[in-house]
């Protein structure tokens, strides 16, 4: 366990436990699980299931942020790939549908990576282009309608179950293990961190920084595509306007809560996914508590601020503030 969860994950685990405890207080049956028709039901499973899209997005996002980048377009990519999957679902077999949707995500990632790695654009700007245009493209695919489908294969991806767990959760777990095995099982993760730490120094010491940057954006696109397909499968339709709306912000938030610095240079996949779960546990807790969902944004804002202040390079405890105040006064 210690190998998977480094010591710096302690704060996130504690935060999750605290939020779970609060949820237990507001909703006494929060931890209840029951088995029905070979599938587990309960609030905890619900948290995992609903948290899947953001968890998938944060898997790609965390690698992008580790290279000192950011990908604002993941929400739009979700919409594009969901639209493609939904419009092909009833006329093609599942492998074709998946290949088309994931392929589209790959192309979107290539485009972002090309702008950042080859043209040298600032990541925020480069991905802003697809964020703005992407939703338009998605609407072009669905022709402005909400495309629905009934293909049982694709629906299974969103609502089926494997070994009692919902399929989306299994997919997200699989992606986490796959990504972890690839980047941490080889030197790839280290090279990505090196690129984010100091791109020029890494380039000079023989790291193919361009290839690194290009590949993390491609991976981010593929993860977003998968999230888009699952989101579409979940509601049995694609809504180009609302699929994945603002999820890029949640994904960035999840990564930041997971302790990955926005300045690049280090990352943790497990903690990013944990961050996504923390966000979803909060959301579910607010819903269960009976408070209006409007509180959601406020709570989120407070949590972001708290995490930011804890991570601030200028702030290591209260002493840091005091020292800083003294310095500014002097």
């Amino acid at each position: 366990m210690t190998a998977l969860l480094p010591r710096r994950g302690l704060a996130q685990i504690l935060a999750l436990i605290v939020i779970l405890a609060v949820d237990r207080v507001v909703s006494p049956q929060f931890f209840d699980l029951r088995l029905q028709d070979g599938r587990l039901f309960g609030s905890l499973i619900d948290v995992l299931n609903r948290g899947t899209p953001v968890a998938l997005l944060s898997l790609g996002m965390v690698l992008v942020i580790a290279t000192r980048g950011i990908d604002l377009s993941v929400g739009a990519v979700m919409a594009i790939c969901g639209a493609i999957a939904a419009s092909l679902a009833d006329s093609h077999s599942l492998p074709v549908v998946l290949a088309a949707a994931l392929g589209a995500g790959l192309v979107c990632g290539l485009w972002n990576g090309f702008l950042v790695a080859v043209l040298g654009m600032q990541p925020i700007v480069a991905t802003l282009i697809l964020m703005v245009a992407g939703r338009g493209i998605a609407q072009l695919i669905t022709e402005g309608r909400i495309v629905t489908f009934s293909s049982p294969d694709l629906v299974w991806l969103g609502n089926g179950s494997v070994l009692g767990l919902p399929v989306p959760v299994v997919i997200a777990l699989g992606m986490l293990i796959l990504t972890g095995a690839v980047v941490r099982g080889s030197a790839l993760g280290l090279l990505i961190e090196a690129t984010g730490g100091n791109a020029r120094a890494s380039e000079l010491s023989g790291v193919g920084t361009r290839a690194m940057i290009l590949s993390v954006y491609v991976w981010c696109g593929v993860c977003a595509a998968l999230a888009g397909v699952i989101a579409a499968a979940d509601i049995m339709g694609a809504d180009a306007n609302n699929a994945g709306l603002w999820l890029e912000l949640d994904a960035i938030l999840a990564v930041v809560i997971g302790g990955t610095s926005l300045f690049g240079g280090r990352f943790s996949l497990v903690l990013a996914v944990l961050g996504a779960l923390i966000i979803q546990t909060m959301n579910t807790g607010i819903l269960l508590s009976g408070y209006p969902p409007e509180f959601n944004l406020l709570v989120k804002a407070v949590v972001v601020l708290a995490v930011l202040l804890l991570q601030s390079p200028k702030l290591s405890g209260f002493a840091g503030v005091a020292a800083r105040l003294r310095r500014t006064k002097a």
Partner: protein
Amino acid sequence: MRGLPPVLITAIVLVAGFALCAVQFPNIASTRVVGNLLTDNAFLGIVATGMTFVIISGGIDLSVGSVIGFTTVFVALAIERWGMPPLVAFVAILALSAAFGAAMGAVIHVFDLPPFIVTLAGMFLARGAGFLLSTESVPITAPVYSTVSDFALRMPGGGRLTSVAIIMLVIVIGGALLLQLTRFGANVYALGGSRATAGLMGVAVGKMTIKIYMLSSLLAGIAGIVFSFYTSAGYSLSAVGVELDTIAAVVIGGTLLTGGQGSVIGTFLGVLIQGLIQTYINFDGTLSSWWTKIATGVLLFAFIALQQGLVAFARRPRTKSLGAAT
């Protein structure tokens, strides 16, 4: 051959685009359409002016759309439910939004955090606060609203320059003067060039950061009031995604997102280009509104690629540039 300044390119794109539209739909070239263009994009022009300062200083402000939304709800509730006189409500919300911006600037400076993520938190906060006030659309019936909305200067050709458009033009011109002619403006450019250098040269970096974000939020507050004039209602979901339109307008206007270069006039032209695309789509009637997004995306790409080219051009080795000159 020094290359055209980005503002000039934006202006050429606007004029050429307008000419193309006018060839296809001669009615576009009327003061009525131009007047509507200014009115419909008044709030965008006001926020974009503030965003220009933030981006030139090397930052970004994602909270503006939410501040607009919050402002419209606050103003509507203050006037309709809490019985405040409109002017008092305006002063209160402007003070509130200025304080909000100052707080974000202070957090960015004191804790040395990326503006992107701090203003993201600000975006959640302002939108959430708006939701808390009211999730319904609150109509505003105060008499001052109809007076201000009905006021307009007649332009030759039957066009109306509405009060909302006039407020926007005044703010754009004021913003341009502030940026070009004052020490504050010079400091904004200095910060965007390099924070460390600006600090060493005696710019009070902290105070400037706070003032810049304060200005941006204040203008977002004014934009919110203008938006409430435009719709005669307050709604917490209004102006969702406006931060993106605003950033797009600023970038299309030739401001470098890395900071240090740009102008308010360019931003104004960028706003007009976005408005023109919208107007063209309305005139055409067969194109769907999502083409606006795609066209804006394409324009964004074109302008950023162009800037990237200009920067590369400026940074190439001396010998090469001498060779090109001869």
